[in-house]
């Protein structure tokens, strides 16, 4: 995305959510000395990160820096080969049951939405609560409608994903993830595939969600969003975490040369 800093995202800054300071569980995500290879290619190098409950992390970096791969390791869509990832006290290993336990508590939103095209919006949202959480259908539907209202598209509940715009589809995808009542939400470039005029509607939903105290990890190029909601911005390059800092510090006073260069490039135009 070229114009990652649109006017729309900047105006969102006025709606800064209240930062929740109550005592939350520390270290709900713990990544320790994690490495990953694709064949011989060393994609992720010695990553260490601890995320507390309720923290909002934005991960940015040039393309190919491994930020998407990193976030996908946290619910084991990608496998890591060395080091530890512990999510909500469950370590991600080859054990399928542990992986599914983690996945139930971690919602994920994808760049290309990945809604199920053969199911209606409501069915998309209810699928996992009904089949995995064994929620009765009525209850699951009522809860799904609440979330659809929260992302402001309850009127589209009985349409198929193919009938919605990109922005609407992405909001459904967020609602679908929330229906599992996850403790953590992962966002993998949620606005990168959207037309510019639809980015705001999705960001607004994410800002609202951040305000509710959800633990969030978000890979994004939306620097306005990072400034608004992030507790911490992480800059990755070449498969390493180069720098992490609160957004104000990160944008005004970056320490590393690579960070400065990256910020110059994306903020220059």
């Amino acid at each position, binding site marked *: 995305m070229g114009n990652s800093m649109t006017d729309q995202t900047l105006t969102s800054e006025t709606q800064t959510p209240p930062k929740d300071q109550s005592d939350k569980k520390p270290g709900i995500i713990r990544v320790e000395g994690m490495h990953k290879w694709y064949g011989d290619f060393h994609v992720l190098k010695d990553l260490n990160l601890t995320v507390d409950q309720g923290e909002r992390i934005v991960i940015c970096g040039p393309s190919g820096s491994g930020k998407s791969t990193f976030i996908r390791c946290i*619910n084991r*869509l990608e496998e890591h080969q060395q080091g530890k990832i512990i999510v909500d006290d469950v370590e991600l290993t080859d054990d*399928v049951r542990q992986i*599914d*336990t983690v*996945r*139930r508590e*971690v*919602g*994920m939103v*994808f760049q*290309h*939405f*990945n*809604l*199920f*095209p*053969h199911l209606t919006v409501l069915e998309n949202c209810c*699928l*996992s609560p009904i*089949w*995995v959480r064994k929620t009765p259908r009525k209850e699951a539907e009522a809860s799904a409608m609440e979330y659809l209202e929260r992302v402001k598209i309850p009127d589209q509940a009985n349409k*198929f*994903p*193919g*009938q919605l715009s990109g922005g609407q589809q992405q909001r459904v995808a967020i609602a*679908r*993830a929330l229906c*599992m009542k996850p403790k953590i939400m992962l966002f993998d470039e949620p606005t990168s595939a959207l037309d510019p005029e639809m980015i705001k509607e999705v960001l607004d939903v994410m800002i609202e969600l951040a305000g509710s105290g959800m633990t969030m990890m978000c890979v994004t190029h939306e620097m306005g969003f990072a400034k608004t909601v992030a507790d911490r911005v992480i800059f990755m390059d070449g498969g390493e975490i180069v720098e992490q800092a609160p957004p104000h510090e990160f944008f005004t006073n970056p320490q590393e040369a690579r960070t400065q260069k990256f910020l110059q490039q994306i903020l220059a135009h």
Partner: protein
Amino acid sequence: MTESTMKAPKKALRPVKWMRENLFSGWFNTALTLAVAYLLVTSVGPLLNWFFLDANFVGSDASDCTGAGACWLFISQRLNFFIYGFYPDELQWRVDTMFLLLAVAFVPQFVERFPGRKWLGLFGIFGLPVVGYFLIPGGTFGLEEVQSSKWGGLMLTLILAYIGIIASLPIGILLALGRRSDMPIIRGICVVFIEVWRAVPLITVLFMASVMLPLFLPEGVNFEKLARALIGITLWQSAYMAEVIRGGLQAIPRGQYEAADALGLGYWRKMGLVILPQALKMVIPGIVNTFISLFKDTTLVLIIGLFDILGTVQSTVTDPAWQNVAIEGYVFVAFCFWVFCFGISRYSQNLERKLDTGHKT
């Protein structure tokens, strides 16, 4: 959506204009049109005469076939044999019941708003084979036993095709999933199974099933010839089905698998609720193609001595009591096959339309 007062221009249907544009748009097209028209005029007339106008419909035996056209008497007189084979006359109500149930289960599938349509369809798929299993051979519930060697005609064709179709789809799905599995042993077994069965002609499979299989079975164990043929046809067909379905599985974008994974659905729910419904929908044309070709391939059971509809007709056209009725016989067989295959094809198109949710991620 904006309110618009402009309507799309209507396409006017004007026959003369249409003909000028499509049939007579140049000297070459005009010549083609005239040639085709000549062929139609000269061929349709005699065909009509043979099929209907000069044909013989009433009477009781060959001597009543006096007209120059087709002798349909042959069909109507021997119809019982063509449909039931050697199944005893007084027990044919059992087969008729099955025909009726088949119609009750599947004809409503063509009517969009038929009440309980789905349940009838499910009965057709799961209930019908069970009912047929007890009703047609008899031997239980006080029903007189009818050896499978006496079954024949259309009834046998339908049994072979129906069981082949219904059993091969689930086996094919499992084989397709197995071939794409991460587990090397399961994948290996499925690959070997598919490649072996798919590489063998059906005739060979039938020969093996009827001649060689008994040699390998332990003493005393013996299936009927029909059961062996059915097993052979089903396994052969599932190998084909597996590859068709695998094509569908491969066409589903990776994002769908990942989204299902991220929701914690687990393997079987992911496949059953997300991947297979989309994959199967996508390959309906391929599946139906395989069904139709199986339906016609069942005629090969002739070579192991089972009399399906083609077999019964073929054995009758040489009957000295009837002369020169081969064409009528084969036209009749062709028509029967066409009716069923066309029905399958229409239904699949119905299904495709109904399942289309207009989104091809």
